[in-house]
């Protein structure tokens, strides 16, 4: 039972923090609330026997990527009161579009709920089939990563190099000779 309570606490925290990220007009608070949401998801990862991913989420995502976002928010220093006007002049603010969109959203929710209620496997406990020690060990994760997924791993390093070069190139001032 404490397991279920912890699950409810973390998932409620994740959902509420994510909703606040979207409801917020100040991007600074949005970034900080997203860090809170990531912390809650990291808690869910630990419950799912993925401690390595939980730590990677906190260190890489919350520690590095969100700080990058914070830097950009502070660097640009955009005025906040514009956001109110932007919301009023939203191109999707049209009565017909709004109604059709609401209808589609309700259909999607009903469909998802139906699919999740129907599956027999889905009602089983999430760890009921698994051998506990094979999933949670970081050694096993590293072994699979460097043998079966070797090519994907190397391709990722090329991707990061390309992203780095692209980011430097695009953020450079125009007309500046290097």
């Amino acid at each position: 039972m404490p397991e279920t309570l912890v699950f409810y606490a973390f998932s409620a925290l994740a959902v509420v923090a994510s909703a606040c990220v979207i409801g917020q007009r100040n991007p600074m608070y949005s970034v900080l609330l997203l860090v809170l949401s990531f912390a809650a998801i990291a808690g869910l990862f630990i419950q799912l026997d993925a401690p390595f991913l939980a730590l990677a989420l906190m260190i890489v995502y919350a520690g590095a990527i969100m700080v990058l976002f914070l830097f950009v928010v502070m660097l640009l220093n955009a005025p906040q009161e514009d956001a109110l006007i932007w919301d009023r002049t939203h191109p999707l603010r049209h009565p017909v579009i709004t109604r059709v969109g609401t209808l589609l959203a309700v259909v999607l929710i009903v469909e998802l709920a139906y699919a999740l209620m129907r599956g027999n496997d889905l009602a089983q406990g999430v760890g009921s089939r698994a051998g506990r020690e094979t999933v949670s060990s970081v050694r096993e994760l590293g072994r699979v990563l460097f043998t079966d997924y070797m090519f994907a791993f190397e391709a990722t390093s090329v991707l990061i190099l390309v992203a780095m070069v692209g980011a430097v190139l695009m953020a450079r001032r125009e007309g500046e000779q290097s």
Partner: protein
Amino acid sequence: MVPLSYYLIVSAVLFALGAAGVFLRRNLITILLSIEIMLNAVNLTFVAFGRFAGDVDGQIITFFVMTVAAAEAAVGLALVIALFRHRESLNPDAFTNLKW
């Protein structure tokens, strides 16, 4: 033991919140943050299914998704900076022209 469907419901809710953020917000930085919410919702699904199936493949895919998300955030923020230099605005409606 928490059933698998609970994790799927949580990640579906998180994904819907992220999608709603992309559609509703008019700030480029908030849109990027909503994309991060959606990526994490999918990560949660992968890890839950990986735990359910009892192998590490779900965690490996999540690892790759995180790497791609880092690259995406770097390029996306560089684009935001370049766009802000052009128009002094973060409203996506200011950037409807392909060339100016």
